[in-house]
């Protein structure tokens, strides 16, 4: 092939970038889909440019650079990396935000604390329950979850026995807010965060606002907004680049990233009115990546079957996924 003109190349790259952006959403209308297919079919260079753009956009490297850029910019624009990398700077910034702000503690009769009852909340499968606590905090409880809460004049304690909950905690200077989740303790310093207790004792914490301290069997971590942590037995993995101001499941989305099929099904069953079952537990080990809309379980079941070449059926009020 003759060398390409620079202008032609620029045109292909721009088109690839635009298509990548347009095709990121889950549902495209059929006219757009047809145009995309035609563009890919038109020239082998199109698909190559598109694939490279996709790799670049999804790379961890870009996310890390963006994180660092963000932290740097908030401190006044472009500068060379001083001591303490971008992460350290981000932490310092969050500490600055969390410090201070002494609010007035309400005068509560002391006796009340002695009899402070423990309230237990449950959300049935297929529903999400909203809980407003007397301190002004809000909790969204995902289907199939159980949470107990006890507020006393000097402490706020919650215990997430199973499932997932998103906490939007009212800031108080004198009363911390702590959540127990299967032996991990999450101490809050006035924030919004999500805890997910999954089968097999795996716990995931994601922070959307403020700063959170997580104490597990193997150590203590401080997590600023936009980060998270997975505790899985003895393994600890940090999560980066958590976006938005609330977890996707509240809006009916689940972002799978190399997620086990049984975890995805577990999540799906929290909100799906029709349960999904795997014929063979071994299928649970398959991995899935992609963004799924949780309120269309049948579409997800179809997609999973397509991705992993499985069969599915709907019988006796449930979806079954099995080997063909």
């Amino acid at each position, binding site marked *: *092939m003759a060398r*390409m003109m620079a202008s032609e*190349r*620029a045109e292909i*790259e*721009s088109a690839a*970038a*635009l298509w*990548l*952006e*347009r*095709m990121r959403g889950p*549902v*495209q209308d059929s006219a757009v*889909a047809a145009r*995309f*297919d035609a563009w*890919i*079919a038109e020239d*082998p260079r199109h*698909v*190559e*440019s*598109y*694939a*490279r*753009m*996709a*790799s*670049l*956009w*999804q*790379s*961890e*490297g*870009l*996310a*890390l*650079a*963006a994180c*660092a*850029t*963000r932290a*740097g*910019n908030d401190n006044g624009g472009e500068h060379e990396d001083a001591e303490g990398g971008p992460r350290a700077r981000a932490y310092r910034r969050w500490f600055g935000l969390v410090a201070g702000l002494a609010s007035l503690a309400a005068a509560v009769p002391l006796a009340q604390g002695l009899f402070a009852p423990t309230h237990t909340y449950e959300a049935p499968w297929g529903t999400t329950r909203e809980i407003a606590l007397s301190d002004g905090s809000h909790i969204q409880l995902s289907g199939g979850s159980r949470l107990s809460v006890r507020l006393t004049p000097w402490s706020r304690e919650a215990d997430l026995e199973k499932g997932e909950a998103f906490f939007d905690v009212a800031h108080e200077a004198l009363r911390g807010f702590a959540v127990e989740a299967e032996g991990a303790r999450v101490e809050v310093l006035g924030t919004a965060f999500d805890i997910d207790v999954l089968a097999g004792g795996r716990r995931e914490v994601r922070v959307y606002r403020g700063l959170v301290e997580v104490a597990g069997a193997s150590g203590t971590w401080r997590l600023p907004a*936009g980060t998270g942590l997975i505790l899985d037995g003895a393994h600890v993995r940090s999560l980066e*680049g958590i*976006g*938005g101001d609330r977890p996707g499941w509240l809006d009916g989305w689940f972002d799978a990233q*190399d997620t086990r099929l049984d975890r995805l099904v577990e999540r799906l069953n929290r909100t799906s009115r029709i349960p999904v079952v795997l014929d063979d537990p071994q299928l649970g080990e*398959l*991995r*899935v*990546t*992609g963004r799924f809309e949780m309120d269309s379980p049948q579409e997800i079941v*179809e997609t999973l079957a*397509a*991705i*992993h*070449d499985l069969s599915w059926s709907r019988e006796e009020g449930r979806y079954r996924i099995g080997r063909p």
Partner: protein
Amino acid sequence: MPRPDALQIARDGDSPGTDWTMVQSRLIGYLRARGARADLAEDIAQETVLRLIAISRTKEIGSVFALGFRIADNLLVDQHRAESRYADAGEGGEGEEGQWQTTAPSLDRVLDSRRAIEVFQRCLNRMPALRREVLVRRRLRNESCRAIGEDLALSGKAVEKHITRGLVDLRRAMEKAGIDPAGWHE
């Protein structure tokens, strides 16, 4: 058992409007550009086409390529995981070095290297502040174009433009630095 040839299967009147041979060759191109080895790219493209044909028999596919890329990505990740398991299982088998070279992340690894991060960062820092802000929000927080537009007083079109220009800038920076050059002259 030899695998059936996807393209032969497709000949008995499946989706008469779809040129499966072309689809398969585009999928190979896609996988190669994603860093898959040639033999693996061919296997996965073949498998993907088989699945696309099976799906197209029962339902209307919106975009053959959007679904095809998604299936191919998943197969590539599966394959990579299987190969790294083999690599882990090898009892100190240094003699076989390279035999189980990981495939999927070969490109990802390049793009996640310290040097790549530096190049990304320099490129982001040189961009106009608004474009950088849009890109970072889209990539880190996954905000929708509409939300970004409302926040920064931009139209949806303008946000889209910032994202695509930013992406092209980043690709150029990678090329200039010699990381992941495109194979435009094949």
